[in-house]
């Protein structure tokens, strides 16, 4: 029984390898239709799958593979020309094979679905009988294939895999070690088949760039290859890496102990000789460990080619369906990076490429008009630099129209007009990464759904990478993705706060700020929220001790003034914020260790690590901290698992119409439409003073005006043409006007309110509207605060 399973697993692994190759080979074949080597290789690939299927009792897979083989056989024998249509239908067959193989991997059996239709269309194509119906079949199934592809590419489903997590190995086709393609060619079915075997073609080394194994050539190479590489279980590798990680930690501890002993020894002169011998050994252990670590890390390294190999097919299909002509040029495909990272960047990269094809590269006609070659170029380049991997994805398409991005962002209420005017080109371009912004005029089935680039960015940042974009209108766009080589060991800044050690991944650290007592600048408090003016820009300040309930109450106003303050400026997605800690010590390379499930509910925690002195330090999740501090637009999660004193707790969800407005340019408030009487704009010059209050004549009455900005301590944004927006509230036929910065929009949104524990007067809580965190105004309370007694007056 186990033997059988083994055979099946072996087969699946080989199949996956073969299929991966097929996509690429077909695309290549389309370019060089008369390349017999390529055709031969494809034929053998399919043939092997078919042959082994019969042997393992997989009739559906065999059926499809057989159909494809028949066409290939006709093509190879010259009975049929290699056409684009032919390749399309063969690629469909490959997709079907992929689907079946995938199903077998997951469940151990073939899917229930019938593949007779697929086989039939293959046969129909072969006989060439129903040429007129062919077109239909093709487009329809092409759509299906595309859809399937898109499902497969769903960018949001990138598994949030931690580096330290041991991965399941068996069913993952990508867990395959590449060098075994030779074995594949020699699968038993190949020789025992009744079909005529492809004649060995003369090796043509120049033509091998696609990696197409040519039988004669590979026969020669085979013994060497088979001896120089073995298939290794990924689980075993992970274990090895974990152990090396531990060794590194033990080494660090040893070094520390030796150093402290050295210090002791320097006081007594006697045992100097003993020490020097010891030191030699320790140094050797140190060196060997470092080398071992580097080497073991390399075992997890895979060339980026592994994921790039899929792109020719993606590009071909997309180009074909959008009527564009695109050349895919890849450089540096041999650049290696950690397997986990490789998997993590696969979907973001695919997304960027699809974007480039869909929105970037123009149709041939418009390219011609602009004096560009009709064929667009998509250029991928990967290289190592400074211990990181750089990936460039550039196209020579239309580029991004910054003005259009701004307009779009304006119309979606993501930015205000003033901001749009002041915005730099780079900032405007970066709006692309804003959730809910899609500049495609036409929403295609490929992209333009408005989710995408923000997810790309988030996912890249999750693995400690960065994404930059540059674009020149009419010339093209370039994306630069920079990611670390590995995630198992990360550089981190060690700090301590509330007496406990913490590690902050260096990737999220922007800078460190130290405020001493004499410093003129200090942290300013606005209604319980703290800010610091960092080069003129307000930086929200959080304190780790407050957030985590640690002892040192540094946020007490006196404390801030009484002693120095360490602020780490951190970035969490689009936001940056300052985090106050007690002590900042040093940067260190740390090994991320997983935590027990019971602690996974703590969003501020990314893991733990062991320090040189053997203590355990907690690794902070910067994103989680930002969320806990209410800084992120993303949904706030429970910071802890405390039940009675929840920091956030959610009330019921209802759908409500709300007026969105801002006071300064950076904030957003909402008030339920039902609570307000009117929205007005008043001329500033008409404002009069009456008993110390701003008033204005409004409908034959004096309307008291209160400025929301003054009450909450925010500078009200300047308005043009001296007109100020006012929200008029009426209670018992008395009205009051609240001056705001700008009325943004009226929206109908789910009222998914997060109540804040540090209840700010006049604010009920915060909600997320269109992905932006918005404060919900408690209007009655607010008015009661700024005009005490008014509410009582009117209710009398």
């Amino acid at each position, binding site marked *: 029984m186990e033997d059988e399973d083994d055979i099946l697993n072996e087969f699946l692994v080989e199949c996956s390898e073969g299929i991966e190759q097929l996509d690429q080979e077909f695309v290549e074949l389309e370019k060089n239709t008369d390349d017999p080597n390529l055709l031969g290789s494809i034929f053998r690939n399919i043939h092997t799958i078919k042959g082994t299927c019969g042997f393992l009792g997989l009739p559906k897979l065999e059926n499809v593979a057989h159909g494809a083989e028949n066409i290939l056989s006709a093509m190879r024998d010259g009975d049929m020309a290699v056409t684009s249509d032919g390749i399309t239908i063969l690629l469909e067959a490959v997709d079907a094979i992929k689907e079946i193989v995938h199903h077998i991997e997951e469940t151990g059996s073939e899917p229930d679905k019938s593949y007779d239709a697929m086989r039939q269309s293959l046969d129909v194509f072969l006989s060439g009988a129903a040429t007129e119906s062919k077109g239909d079949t093709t487009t329809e199934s092409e759509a299906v294939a595309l859809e399937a592809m898109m499902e497969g590419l769903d960018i949001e489903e990138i598994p949030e895999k931690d580096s330290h997590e041991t991965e399941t190995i068996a069913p993952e086709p990508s867990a395959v070690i590449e060098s075994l393609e030779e074995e594949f060619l020699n699968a038993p079915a190949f020789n025992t088949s009744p079909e005529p075997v492809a004649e060995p073609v003369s090796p043509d080394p120049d033509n091998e760039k696609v990696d197409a194994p040519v039988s004669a050539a590979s026969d020669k190479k085979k013994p060497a290859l088979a001896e120089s590489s073995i298939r290794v279980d990924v689980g075993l590798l992970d274990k090895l890496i974990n152990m090396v990680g531990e060794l590194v930690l033990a080494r660090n501890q040893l070094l520390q102990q030796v150093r402290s002993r050295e210090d002791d020894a320097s006081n007594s002169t006697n045992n100097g000789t003993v020490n020097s011998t010891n030191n030699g050994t320790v140094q050797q252990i140190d060196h060997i460990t470092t080398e071992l670590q580097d080497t073991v890390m390399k075992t997890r390294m895979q060339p980026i080619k592994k994921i790039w190999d899929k792109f020719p097919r993606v590009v071909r299909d997309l180009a074909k369906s959008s009527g564009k002509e695109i050349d895919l040029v890849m450089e540096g495909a041999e650049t290696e990076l950690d397997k986990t990272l490789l998997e993590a960047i696969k979907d973001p990269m695919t997304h960027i490429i699809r974007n480039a094809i869909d929105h970037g590269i123009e149709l041939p006609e418009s390219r011609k008009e602009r004096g560009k070659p009709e064929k667009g170029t998509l250029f991928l380049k990967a290289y190592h630099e400074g211990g990181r991997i750089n990936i460039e994805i550039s196209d020579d398409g239309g580029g991004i129209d910054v003005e259009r991005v701004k307009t779009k962002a304006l119309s979606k209420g993501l930015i205000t007009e003033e901001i749009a005017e002041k915005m730099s080109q780079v900032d405007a371009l970066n709006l692309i990464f804003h959730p809910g912004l899609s500049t495609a005029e036409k929403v295609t089935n490929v992209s333009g759904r408005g989710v995408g680039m923000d997810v790309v960015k988030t996912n890249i940042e999750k693995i400690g990478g960065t994404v930059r974009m540059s674009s020149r209108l009419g010339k093209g766009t370039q994306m630069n993705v920079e990611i670390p080589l590995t995630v198992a060991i990360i550089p981190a800044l060690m700090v301590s706060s509330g007496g406990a050690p913490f590690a902050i991944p260096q990737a999220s650290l922007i800078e460190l700020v130290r405020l001493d007592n004499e410093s003129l600048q200090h942290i300013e408090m606005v209604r319980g929220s703290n800010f610091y003016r960092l080069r003129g820009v307000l930086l929200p300040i959080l304190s780790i001790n407050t957030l985590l309930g640690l002892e040192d109450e540094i946020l007490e106003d006196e404390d801030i003034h009484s002693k120095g303050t360490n602020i780490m400026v951190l970035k969490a997605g689009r936001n940056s914020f300052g985090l106050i800690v007690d002590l900042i010590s040093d940067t260190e390379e740390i090994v991320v260790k997983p935590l027990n499930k019971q602690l996974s509910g*703590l969003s501020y925690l990314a893991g733990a690590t062991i320090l040189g002195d053997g203590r355990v330090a907690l690794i902070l999740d910067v994103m989680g901290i930002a969320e806990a501090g209410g800084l992120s637009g993303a949904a706030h999660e429970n910071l802890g698992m405390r039940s009675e004193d929840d920091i956030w707790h959610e009330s019921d969800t209802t759908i409500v119409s709300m007026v969105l407005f801002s006071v300064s340019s950076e904030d957003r408030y909402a008030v339920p439409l039902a609570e307000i009487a009117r929205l007005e704009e008043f001329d500033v010059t008409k404002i009069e003073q009456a008993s110390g209050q701003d008033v204005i004549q409004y409908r034959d009455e004096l309307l008291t005006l209160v400025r929301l900005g003054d009450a909450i301590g925010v500078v009200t944004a300047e308005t043009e043409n001296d007109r100020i927006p006012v929200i008029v509230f009426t209670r018992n036929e008395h009205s009051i006007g609240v001056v705001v910065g700008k009325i943004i929009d009226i929206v109908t949104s789910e009222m998914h309110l997060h109540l804040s524990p540090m209840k700010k007067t006049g604010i009920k809580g915060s909600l997320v509207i269109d992905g932006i965190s918005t404060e919900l105004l408690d209007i009655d309370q607010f008015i009661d605060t700024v005009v005490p007694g008014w509410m009582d007056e009117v209710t009398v």
Partner: protein
Amino acid sequence: MSDTSDENGTSVQDPRLETKRQYATFYLADHFLGVEVDTVQEVFKAKPMTAVPLAPQTISGLINLRGHIIMTIDLRKRLGFKARAEEEKPMSIVVRTSEGLVNMLVDQIGDVIHVLPELFESPPTTLDPQLSETLEGVYKLEDQLLLALSTERIIQVI
């Protein structure tokens, strides 16, 4: 160690069906408790640990056990006993569970003892549920009761 449950092929689920079991015993607020000896990896004097802010109360923190980071559960808190006095230094029992190693803080370590299946009884219904839900059952030893803990249940929903 030779008389493990597997020899007569009985289920581990129901201790009554087994001939003899070995328990690593310990004391907790004057109670006599035990976990199956097979689950125990090691025992040592509790060492300093890193507290995890905002974690459930029963989780005292994380320790470094030769490069492994292990969660520590204070059994007193977990089972609903009153907290240990400051000056009392707890002992650590590291047990293997389905979720990896877990360190349990107890007051004092006892012997490894053999218990006979006929002494076994399900947890009395009158027990505090916080305690009884973590018990496999009770062994009625001659001089005292041995509360047989289930490590799996201890690590559940804390």
